């Protein structure tokens, strides 16, 4: 197995990314035991699960499970330790300064809703602005749109240019003294464009705005360092990073989290409850009302271990090369148009076949055991801008290699043949 082991953070010198061996990695994913010929090209929607996660979840439920932060008995303590250990793994994964800056939520959508409700209602006022990009997933658009409606603020959208490149000048022109929040994706789930988030953070902060980064697509495949980035919030979901569904993460800078009121209230997040008044715990527990997805968090910890064992530098190098290969091959197919993604594209390739609806392409591809996503990819305003009903989207994970792309190309040729 080609792995980089024994690395401590990114400070340790490593001799460049080692190449991944997807065919050996596949062995760790039981889905391919059942269906060895499956060409799974939908990791941007959700990644498959490695044995370490599946078995880790089962082992936790079998031997270590009880409610957390409640019991005095040893089993509950063990469960609590594993739950908090998972929080520490997330902290390390993002290089956050403090474990208390890591809030467990259900998914990215819930993380963004938490910020839009708790931080948004407290700090965004009438006449203020929230600035997003035209690449956002509905989950990083609708919560802000609703917040703006509630408080009388304005939602401002920064565009990508005709080449699919995020337009920094246009973005800068839309920043104003009224901008309270900038919410951007780090990697578009539609085009695969990688956004220059470090520069975006600088610009947002120099305008006095806070910034939230949607890391749903970036977190599984790029090194992320929230301390170096200096972002205020960072959100990602477990199931895209090879972990279980139902668990996600909100990172928030400690000072911000401490100033935010609770969003959901109830058990587990209180300090003292009396009939006249309740006081609340500090972060992160203030934002984790009710019994959390304990096993989900533990499973996420296993998933992050799995990713770190492969090494995100290596995953990034592998998926970058695979993306380039796919774009090159797909672009050579006559009548096929790849959605432009600007200078830097990663792990996601969207395309359309002239005269063939994405749904029909998807059904033919499925017949060839090639699993892709078709449709608007939860980005309807972007589809409207591009004048498309939808696209066919291939996306990559650590188990994909060039043979998968070749199979995709063959299946596309079959679709062309059928709808000729």
């Amino acid at each position: 197995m080609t792995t980089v082991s024994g690395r401590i953070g990114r400070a340790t010198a490593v001799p460049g990314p080692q190449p991944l061996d997807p065919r050996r990695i596949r062995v760790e994913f039981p889905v391919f035991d059942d269906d060895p010929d499956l060409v799974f090209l939908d990791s941007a929607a959700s990644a498959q699960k490695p044995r370490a996660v599946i078995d880790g979840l089962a082992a936790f439920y079998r031997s270590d499970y009880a409610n957390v932060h409640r019991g005095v008995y040893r089993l509950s303590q063990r469960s609590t330790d594993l739950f908090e250990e998972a929080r520490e793994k997330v902290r390390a994964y993002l290089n956050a300064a403090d474990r208390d800056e890591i809030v467990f939520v259900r998914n990215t959508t819930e993380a963004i809703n938490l910020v839009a409700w708790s931080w948004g209602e407290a700090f965004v006022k009438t006449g203020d602005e929230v600035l997003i990009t035209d690449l956002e997933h509905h989950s990083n658009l609708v919560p802000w749109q609703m917040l703006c409606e509630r408080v009388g603020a304005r939602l401002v959208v920064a565009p990508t240019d005709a080449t699919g490149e995020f337009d920094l000048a246009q973005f800068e022109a839309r920043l104003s003294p009224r901008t309270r929040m900038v919410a951007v994706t780090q990697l578009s789930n539609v085009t695969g464009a990688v956004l220059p988030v470090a520069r975006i953070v600088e610009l947002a902060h120099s305008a006095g705005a806070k910034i939230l980064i949607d890391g749903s697509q970036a977190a599984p495949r790029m090194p992320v360092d929230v301390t170096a980035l200096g972002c205020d919030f960072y959100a990602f979901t477990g199931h895209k990073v090879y972990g279980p569904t139902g668990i996600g993460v909100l990172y928030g800078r400690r000072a911000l989290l401490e100033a935010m009121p609770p969003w959901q209230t109830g058990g587990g997040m209180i300090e003292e409850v009396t009939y006249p008044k309740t006081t609340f715990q500090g972060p992160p527990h203030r934002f984790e009302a009710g019994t959390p997805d304990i096993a989900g968090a533990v499973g996420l910890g296993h998933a992050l271990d799995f990713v770190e064992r492969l090494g995100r530098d290596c995953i990034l190098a592998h998926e970058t090369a695979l993306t380039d290969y796919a774009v090159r091959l797909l672009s050579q197919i006559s009548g096929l148009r790849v959605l432009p993604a600007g200078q830097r594209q990663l792990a996601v390739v969207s395309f359309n076949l002239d005269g063939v609806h994405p749904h029909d392409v998807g059904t033919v591809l499925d017949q060839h055991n090639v699993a892709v996503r078709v449709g608007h990819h939860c980005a309807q305003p972007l589809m409207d801008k591009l004048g498309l009903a939808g696209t066919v989207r291939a996306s990559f994970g650590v188990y994909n290699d060039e043979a998968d792309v070749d199979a995709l190309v063959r299946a596309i040729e079959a679709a062309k043949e059928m709808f000729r």
Partner: protein
Amino acid sequence: MMDLRELYQDIILDHGRHPRNFRKIERPTHTAQGHNPLCGDRVTVYVTLDGERIGDVAFEGRGCAISTAAASLMTEVLKGKTMAEAAELFAHFHARVTGADEPPLTASLSADAERLEPLTGVKAYPSRVKCATLSWHALQSALKGETRTVKTE
């Protein structure tokens, strides 16, 4: 898995490429939109009722081969039918594509039901059943005089 040609039969591909009655009726007596939020497909169905009878029916919109062919074939079989006959054909067609128990069909409509039979290949593709029924739902909504957009989700 069944042969893809069971789904994409020649008649489906033909109607998908060259839909019949693919036009706007300028002054319809009834009209409605169908929307499939899953794929973003939209169809507008126009009807001109002549008493109880469908004098003209046409559609516009964008969709996959299945939904376009389904709308096209629907307009072909419905011209000249009464509202009751249209409802009966839809009930029968709906049962055929979803695999539900088929309601009895008036003998005079069996040739029309037969015309729709190539679409029943969607039965094996649950995610595509809505493509085949979207225009029918829109038609039903139009005839009821509803103005809202029919959604499949």
